[in-house]
């Protein structure tokens, strides 16, 4: 499968990365080169193979339902959460107005 400029433009839009026409043109052969190379995986017979889910055999641990048990994973830290925000007002993050 190879991509054209329209496809790359669509992917870039999905990924929310603005690209100029010039960048698009440059990206097409680059991405096609990489895609053509990874497509050699298609020659591997995987008909009886399960996709990998856990690289090291391990099961999912669950935690207890306790609020703020560890300050690193709990809430109640608005200052820390907003400290790096480009725009924070009245305890909220600010973003350009969204029309729903």
């Amino acid at each position, binding site marked *: 499968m190879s991509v054209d400029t329209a496809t790359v433009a669509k992917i870039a839009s999905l990924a929310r990365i603005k690209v100029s026409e010039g960048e698009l043109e440059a990206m097409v052969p680059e991405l096609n080169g990489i895609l053509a190379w990874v497509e050699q995986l298609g020659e591997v017979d995987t008909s009886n193979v399960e996709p990998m*889910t856990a690289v090291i055999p391990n099961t999912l641990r669950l935690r207890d339902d306790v609020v*703020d048990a560890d300050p690193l994973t709990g809430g109640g830290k*608005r200052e820390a*959460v907003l400290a790096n925000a480009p*725009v924070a007002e009245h*305890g*909220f993050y*600010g973003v*350009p*107005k969204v029309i729903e």
Partner: protein
Amino acid sequence: MSNYRIQGATGEWEVVIGLEVHAQVTSQAKLFSGAATAFGAEPNTQVALIDAAMPGMLPVPNKECIRQAVRTGMAINAQINKYSRFDRKNYFYADLPQGYQISQLYHPIVGEGSLTIEADAKAGIPEDKVIGIERIHVEQDAGKLMHDQHPTMSYVDLNRVGVALMEIVSRPDMTSPAEAGAYLSKLRTILRYVGSCDGNMDQGSMRADVNVSVRKAGEPLGTRTETKNVNSVRFVMQAIEHEAMRQVDVLESGGQIVQETRLFDPNSGTTRSMRSKEDAHDYRYFPDPDLLPLILEDDFLEDCRASLPELPDAKKARYENELGLSAYNASVLTADVDTARWFERLLAETAKASGKAPAEVSKQAANWLISELFGALNKLGTSLEESPVTPEKGGDLLALIAKGTISGSAAKQVLEIMLETGDDAETIVEREGLKQESDTGAIEAEVDKILAANEDKVAQYKDGKVALFGFFVGQTMKAMKGKGNPQVVNEILKTKLG
């Protein structure tokens, strides 16, 4: 199939409805963080570093949320998947800090199940109907945007980000707004019984995405629209009604239905296309590499099952079969878990206070709760939860009736005073002198006086004019100022008159 049809210019249209209900899982902490889930906190005060998607933060699932989803699945007799996985649903929006929602697409925790909605002739549901439930999966809630606080900005509050939701996906088995309403109500009832969701629709703990399509009888399914986040039973019904009509109008005027996301406006009762979600999404789901497969062990599942309460259908059947309640009363009392719990405490208290078996006082308790207390609370504009009359006090009152200490009419008076003062029944009965006379000696004395004063009528009675029995009862009661126990009066009169 319901008989609900839309009469269009070109004929009758059937409506096909499926609901995706998002129910907030009852838990103290969030699905993947230790931040609190409480409603109504100051903005961004219940946000952990991971909820704000700080670089390098990782999710660890909350066991209680998993447990509640499993219990809910069991309550709808669903397949519980011992192997499930979390997947990422990728899209960009200001209420979604990670840029993806952790959900379950490929391997949900709960598979196929169902629930039964009850026949309701008035609502056009001729008989009980089983509605299929395709799956339940666990996922993260998103944050909240405020659009009206600033002229050019929207404000973002992440308190809800990461709160655990169950998405309960029905089959498109409903064919009328009433069926959809009944399904949602029943689902809410079950969730509240299980305790996995508080069902507070006005706080957003439960909301439905409504999938609607229309078709002519016998034709394949039409294109559906999805109306998002409808947050009451009534609104769901309105949204369906409006959306189905709109679709019929579009189709009959030669148009086509666009598969799209719509928004319900409760003020106008209409739906409209959602501009911000217009572009077709490609969510690029893939298994979340931060989380391993979730394997449920047998003892965990057994614990979940053992902790399930008696569910509404079973309870209703028991009320009818063991307690002898009418189908209507059983249905009213089991419709909400709080009512059922209240009733059962009332029944236990009544039985204890009166020294009778529950089945002997159950009808009395059910009738009193439904026709007396509900009415009185309604008049006061209050609810059972806040009722000044507790089940204990109610039980005492009912026991006084059962033991013959007060009459039914006196009981009404006692209830009114209880609601006003909060005093217990016995105190009120004493204070107001509402006790009825059950002392056979005192009643006999009165009866003797009445019979002596009415020898002619006694003779007539003995000659066969048995209708006069009521006269003697009336006279005795009158003489006792209404406080004679009618049962005792009857018995004594019967003996004396031979």
